[in-house]
């Protein structure tokens, strides 16, 4: 399911609203979540899961090409932990094949990139 499919499903659920409202709602929700994580706040959605930042301390890495030592600065990366209910529901549904494909006919970006590189060969 892509963002546009999610918007379409929400619009269907709220027939009293104009279609544009679902689109703006998804944008507002995702922006609120992005802003919270950027500030370093946690996000806790009961039954769904929680988002927080994981700290990666600074380290000395190596440039794999030159072998030269490079200082890699500390990093903060978003992390998601599924809630109990979602974890159990997803695991219970293991009869179905995992599908990364969406219902839409649009081709995922990575597939286009892969095709492009095959064509280039």
């Amino acid at each position, binding site marked *: *399911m892509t963002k546009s499919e999610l918007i379409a499903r929400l619009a269907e659920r709220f027939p009293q609203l104009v279609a544009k409202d679902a689109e703006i709602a998804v944008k507002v929700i995702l922006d609120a979540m992005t802003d919270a994580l950027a500030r370093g706040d946690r996000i806790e959605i009961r039954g769904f899961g929680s988002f927080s930042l994981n700290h990666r301390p600074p380290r000395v890495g190596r440039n794999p090409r030159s072998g030269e030592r490079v200082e890699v600065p500390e990093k903060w990366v978003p992390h998601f932990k599924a809630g109990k209910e979602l974890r159990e529901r*997803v695991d219970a549904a293991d009869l179905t094949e995992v599908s990364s494909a969406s219902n839409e006919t649009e081709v995922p970006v990575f597939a286009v990139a892969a095709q492009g590189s095959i064509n280039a060969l």
Partner: protein
Amino acid sequence: MTTLTKAEVSDILFENLGLNKRESKDMVEAFFIEIADTLSAGQWVKLSGFGNFQLRDKPQRPGRNPKTGEEIPITARRVVTFHPSQKLKDEVERVQKTARH
């Protein structure tokens, strides 16, 4: 540090959109239900600019009861993983850098 919950997200929707309180609450609820239902049906969720919720099938592996030391296999299972988009990672880095220095 504070925590963002459904109640706060729904307040933000109410303030930014022409929805009433009831609709805002229902919309936030429906947003997470649609994502959870899709994942439960075995399908990935790709939210461009935010991140992807993917599914991974993990095979059974040996485990141990940490209290008794008894060997108990960890059964095969399907788990959800979240991969933040470059945009989300960049935004987090940008704000964290200014906030912490």
